[in-house]
């Protein structure tokens, strides 16, 4: 009796317990699903699961986020290109004076993988056969963004991207460029066919910040990009370079050729951002005009100075900072800041570049589609002024006397670059058909350098390839001997996080690089015998 009484309670407790357990664990998968994140199923409507990745790709060719842009490009290529210099005294030895900081070197690499390769892979994996025009755009954006990455490091993981978590091998830069051309072939073929079959149809419009979904513009972009890449490798593989350049020019879809072809990351489709250079300049106070820029642009009495920079708080004139100093005190804080607004959209490709590329091609004797080196050069300069909404000063193109001006540092005369220095860009503006190849090349590249500002990445690549325009060497070289001051920096070292996360991959990269992993090793395409 007593026993039954007690057993009943134990049974009751047990049953209650079982009820608690068995009734609820079914809900566990529900509980463990994050309700505030989007699932693939939710993203299927309106092709979001393909289209949605494009704004992110477009905004990460040049990152639209200030602190990422700053390390991705601004404190690296924007300095190495001779455009700018940082007045910030808080960085210690850093890339601007050739101490290649491991934490800075990783940014561009990671950005490319996480925001370009990754998004391309999403599009590629999910697109159906009838959606291949999306894949074509993704390929163009991938080539545009990733050539900027390989041009920083040399070998990078490309063909084997996404195959493993902790070991992904690097491709040689030559293999990567070969792949770039093939990928552009695919993109142009696909898009041309789509445009022919569906004239005026813009399914990409809701996702396109650049051309509003206009595939004909993207075809021009792809061709001009091909021309750029072709010229990049001219000293490493002249034959491919010429073939690809002529192919680009011959394509019936044409090249970027008027100011409205300029590729901007527009603030449309609900995307807003603040121009990262605005924050880097105004909020961080981390970048100013460089000494070389002041020397060239003022030497030419070039009115674009007003479009590019503000007068300095220091003395009411434009003042640039000599590059590669150890800045330990805020003496340069008042020098000329960049003239940029928060709402200025980022430009990722200037149409004027196509003329300078064709001018160089013509100078090399390639078939650039009718026109001479001179005509392309002059059209390019004219378009570059138009792109800044400025009238070209009268006589600019016929100015055959002005060259870069000597540089005077108002705070420290030891930084001066006096008249007669071999580092002054001593080339005149006016075309001279009778001049040497190198002088005319210097002309073309110098004007291209001014035109494509502030794209330091392209300008630095041209400088490494051609040696033009002539720039001032760093005042202080903290590379510990790996970078020769007079030879300038050649690349940035592989991303340090890769040493930890992909050590075997980095080893393949070093092999493919063919030299030590430091800032003094030349890239595959960097083979101009005239450049030290």
């Amino acid at each position, binding site marked *: 009796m007593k026993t039954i009484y*007690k057993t009943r309670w134990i049974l009751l407790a047990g049953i209650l317990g079982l009820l608690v357990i068995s009734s609820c664990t079914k809900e566990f998968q529900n509980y463990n699903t994050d309700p505030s994140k989007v699932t693939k199923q939710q993203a299927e409507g309106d092709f979001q699961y393909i289209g949605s990745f494009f704004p992110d790709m477009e905004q990460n060719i040049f990152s639209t986020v200030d602190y990422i842009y700053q390390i991705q490009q601004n404190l690296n290529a924007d300095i190495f290109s001779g455009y700018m210099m940082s007045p910030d005294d808080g960085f210690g030895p850093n890339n601007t004076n050739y101490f290649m900081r491991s934490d800075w070197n990783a940014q561009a690499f990671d950005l490319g993988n996480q925001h370009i390769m990754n998004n391309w892979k999403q599009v590629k994996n999910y697109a159906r056969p009838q959606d291949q025009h999306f894949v074509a755009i993704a390929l163009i954006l991938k080539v545009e963004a990733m050539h900027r990455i390989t041009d920083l490091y040399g070998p990078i993981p490309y063909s084997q991207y996404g195959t493993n978590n902790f*070991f992904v091998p690097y491709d040689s830069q030559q293999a990567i460029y070969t792949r770039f051309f093939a990928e552009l072939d695919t993109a142009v073929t696909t898009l041309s066919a789509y445009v022919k079959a569906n004239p005026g149809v813009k399914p990409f419009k809701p996702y396109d910040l650049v051309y509003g979904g206009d595939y004909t513009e993207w075809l021009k972009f792809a061709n001009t990009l091909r021309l750029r890449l072709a010229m990049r490798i001219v000293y490493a593989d002249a034959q491919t370079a010429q073939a690809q350049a002529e192919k680009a020019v011959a394509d019936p879809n044409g090249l970027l050729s008027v100011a409205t072809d300029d590729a901007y990351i527009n603030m449309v489709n609900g995307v807003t951002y603040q121009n990262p250079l605005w924050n880097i300049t105004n909020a*961080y106070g981390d970048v100013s005009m460089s000494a070389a820029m002041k020397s060239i642009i003022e030497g030419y009495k070039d009115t674009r100075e007003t479009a590019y920079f503000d007068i300095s708080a220091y003395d009411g004139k434009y003042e640039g900072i000599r590059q590669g100093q150890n800045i330990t005190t805020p003496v340069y804080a008042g020098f000329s800041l960049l003239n940029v607004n928060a709402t200025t959209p980022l430009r990722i490709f200037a149409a004027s570049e196509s003329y300078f590329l064709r001018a160089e091609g013509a100078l090399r004797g390639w078939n650039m589609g009718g026109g001479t080196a001179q005509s392309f050069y002059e059209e390019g300069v004219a378009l570059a002024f138009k792109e800044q909404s400025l009238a070209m000063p009268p006589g600019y193109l016929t100015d055959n006397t002005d060259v870069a001006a000597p540089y005077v540092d108002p705070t420290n005369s030891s930084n001066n670059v006096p008249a007669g220095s071999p580092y002054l860009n001593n080339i005149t503006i006016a075309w001279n058909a009778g001049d040497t190849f190198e002088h005319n090349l210097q002309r073309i590249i110098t004007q291209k350098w001014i035109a494509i500002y502030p794209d330091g990445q392209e300008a630095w690549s041209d400088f490494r390839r051609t040696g033009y325009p002539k720039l001032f060497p760093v005042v202080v070289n903290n590379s510990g001997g790996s970078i020769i001051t007079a030879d300038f920096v050649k690349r940035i070292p592989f991303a340090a996080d890769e040493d930890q996360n992909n050590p075997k991959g980095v080893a393949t990269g070093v092999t493919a690089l063919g030299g030590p992993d430091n800032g003094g090793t030349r890239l595959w395409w960097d083979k101009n015998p005239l450049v030290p």
Partner: protein
Amino acid sequence: MAALLAPMGSMAQQSTAMADSEVNAKLTMNVVKKPLENVLASVGKQTGLGVHYDRSEINSEKLVSITCKNLPVKQVLAEITDQTGLHFSVYKNNLIVTGGSAPTASPDQQSTAVVQKITGTVIDSTGMPLIGVSVTIKGTTNGGQTDVNGQFSINANPGDVLVFTYIGYVTKEVTVGNETTLKVTMKASANALSEVVVTALGITKSAASLSYDQQTVSGKELEVAKDPSFVNSLDGKVSGLQITSSSSGAGGSTKVVLRGNKSIYGSSNVLYVVDGVPLNSLTSTQPTGVFSYGADGGDGISNINPDDIESISVLKGASASALYGSAAENGVILITTKKGKAGKATLTFTSNTTFDRPVLLPKLQDEYARGDNDTTNNTSINSYGARQAAGSPNLNPADYFKTGVTTANSFTLSTGTEKNQTYISFANTHANGIDPGNTFDRDNITVRNTAKLLDDKLTLDISGSYIWQNTNDRPISGTYFNALTSVYLFPRGTDFNQYKNYESYDPTRNIDLPNWITPYTNSGSGGDDPQNPYWVQYKNPTAQGLNRLLASVTAKYDLNSWLNLQGRVKLDKADLASSQELYAGTTLLLANPAGGYNYSSNGQNQVYADLLLNANKQLSSDFSINGTLGVSIQDNQNSSLGFGGRLGNIDNYFNVTNVILTNGDPFNQTNKTEAQTQSAFASVDFGYKKFLYLDVTGRNDWSSALAYTLNSSNDSFFYPSVGLSDVLSSMFKMPDAISYAKLRASYTIVGNSIPAFVSTPAQYTLSSGFLNLNLTKPLGNLKPELTHSFEIGTEWRFVNDHITLDATYYHTNTYNQLFNVPTTTASGGYASQYINGGNVMNEGFEGDLGYNGHISKDFSWNTNFTFSYNHNQVIALYTDNTANPPNVIQEFTFNNSFNAYGLEARVGKPFGEIYVNDFQRDASGNIVVNNGLPQLINNFQDFKDAGNANPNWILGWTNTFRLQQFDLAFTVDGRFGGVVVDMTDAYLDQYGVSQASATARDQGGVLVNGARMDAQTYYSVAGGREGALSNYVYSATNVRLREASVGYTFPGKAFNNKISSLRIAFTGRNLFFFYLKAPYDPETTLSTDNTLQGLDLFGQPSTRSLGFNISAKF
């Protein structure tokens, strides 16, 4: 004490009473459904005892059935108790029957009987009178307390049972006979044989049966010198405990680690259990970087009212884990709160006021002026100018700080009858921090009612607490939004007073703009951008609010004398909101010209319910069993919504509609998580002859966070424990000097689930209306973390329990740790993936040596010395099995935004190893100098191992002296070993404001490779946030006078007994250091996370508190 013992108290008393009676008679009976009075008559006849009971009090007609043959009378009576609920005691050959079934006699009714005045004295075993002992007549509300001489008087009838209860002493019952004067001796419950402790889930156990180390601290001990966050008061009082408090002022978070850090990626923080229910930890976001916008927001324990705490037990290991659950992996702090007590209503009022001043401020120079390169320049932000002109003003940081004032007032009211007790408390805490503008306010209200119903079989305990807390301008670590950055780096030789008026009208903008050494539009000072400190405090104000409701219902039903069923539900609902307003004029780095605004709200709800079946039975005279079967469910829901960003057109309009979209949505935080754990568990404690105990537990958890794990038998895991305790002093005859000796050992495994959503990370996030791929790679093959823990210990008491010694050795290994491991970004765009692995070992020993002595009637001294030693080692990290051959990872670096400081778990080293930037050195050890500058390593892989953030030894020494009405208490504690890095110092050198930089300049520069290098040149590299932090590593060893108090208690008669007692005390906390080498208090921390340890960056200085405390009892 009586209330505490309730679940077992009646049993213990009964058996004690029977044991005293020496009745050894055996009974034979065979009755079926006979009235009780017949049965009792039969008992009386067979035993020769006179049976006494009150017919008006018990139902003598109740039918009982007993069949027995030669059964000890004790067991027969127990059987009757089972059937009737009546209790029996033997007094002078009389069997007295008492019971709860009849209505309690009212005092009036009783007064009609033969009332006599009983007076007496209550003393302890040393003859010392006990003051404030509660004396009640059992079953009534009549009673009183002993006075300062331990004397009481009460009106009672012969046969009444007087109940004497006193905290820390075994409750004593005395039946009134013919004497009118009594002398009652109460035994301290420190006698471990009779001591009963509260363990997991509120289950009480005999202390002798515990197979693991559990140390109890009474609420009184925490009141020596109060801290708004009471956990800080445990410092030095418990062995094995390491407390590090956040440098974020009153009510900040506290990192409490027992027996070393176990979990690398997870938390090593202790679990708090309040009245048997796990407390929601309410962890707030901790700072992670140099710039660090995130302010600590306090934690779940910091807002509990210390006056509601009856006692605290610290369970140091993972032992008996079945009852505590997986969060107990890191040890448990068990809090028992007060409840109402039967007897006269008691009202207490305590008021505590302290005054805080900063200690350990940086040493700044008064020699050189603002400027650079030995040239004075009043636009510079550095202090490397020429020598100061005579009489130049120099800011002393102490002048910036105010005297902080913290006041805490609380009332508690306790009242009740034997059947129903009520407890009400209200507390208000208000603090003005040492930083201008920093305030902290908290109100706590608690109401609790305990009732016995249904013939005393049902105990119902209902409790509700409401907490309202608001903090303004809580100190923020890091450089941004931190006034101290601006104060410490303020240029020397410059008049700070001109900036006290921190804003002035700007006609071009038609608003007030900051008045400071640099215009707000001009940053470019190395990214530190110090603003006017008053602007930071008043025009970048932060506010953090908390509303928290804790409600619980516990119902316990006694099925019979040894079996009860208990059900419990507890709700913990916390709503937190925080905001930061950045007024127009705030540096453009952080806000737009119109300003900026951040707001977030967060709701954290926890529901806990359990059902326990408890059995406690003496199986025979030798064997006893104490067991629990239970099920529980815990559900945590967390939701947050936040927005923030720069303001659009309207200056200082702090509203979401004015926040502009920049790189995404202003709603930057919308999260919802839910995690549920369901458990079934059993614990059985076998006792043999009250000296040998075997404790076996097992628990199975079902965790929702494990859903979607590949190994899909999946969301369930089991963990057991076994323990053995042997009271040697009861087993063998020991010398008289040894009053108690015990050996114990236990082995435990505890599992701990993974956080929600880890096994199934969402595929996409949304930003600016477009999808982004989640950067965490999905990986379903995850297992719960497991800690294997072994401990062996011994407890000894000597000379009538006056000297106590406890010592424990432990060894734990924590496996299957969860890591978020970075992958190569070329792995498919993922930045990281989760991996299980690792083995972290902790071993050490800890102990307590105490003396409690009543040296004379007027003088007593209690002292306790605690010591702990812990050795931690990372045995293994994780292995990537996808690689061929598998890739064995040897180090794990915590992700933070510091460039010159890193924290690692590295195989073969203790966890928490600090790595810092250092100079490059050549083969002969000289610093590499290039272009006149010393060269730094800068590459994390090559950083210098600075040492470990955690101490090896922690020692504590507490003392309490009583001399008549005076009492004096103090605690000294010390930590030995470990290092800290003071990044603040590095900044001060870089800016040239430190005394060190001036001294270097006086000497012609800093000695580098035997030659003097210009100080500014040197410190521009070596100082600052990215410099050679190897120069700023200090020993963390320190010894301090943690707290002290001196008090005087006025006896009730000083107030004509209108007040029963009044105590006034002067208190002090953090009084001074006996030994300290670091420039800041190494026991404060930037973050209570594992990510940042042993690092200071403009953290609020430690404070010395002096104050007074008044407590009155009515």
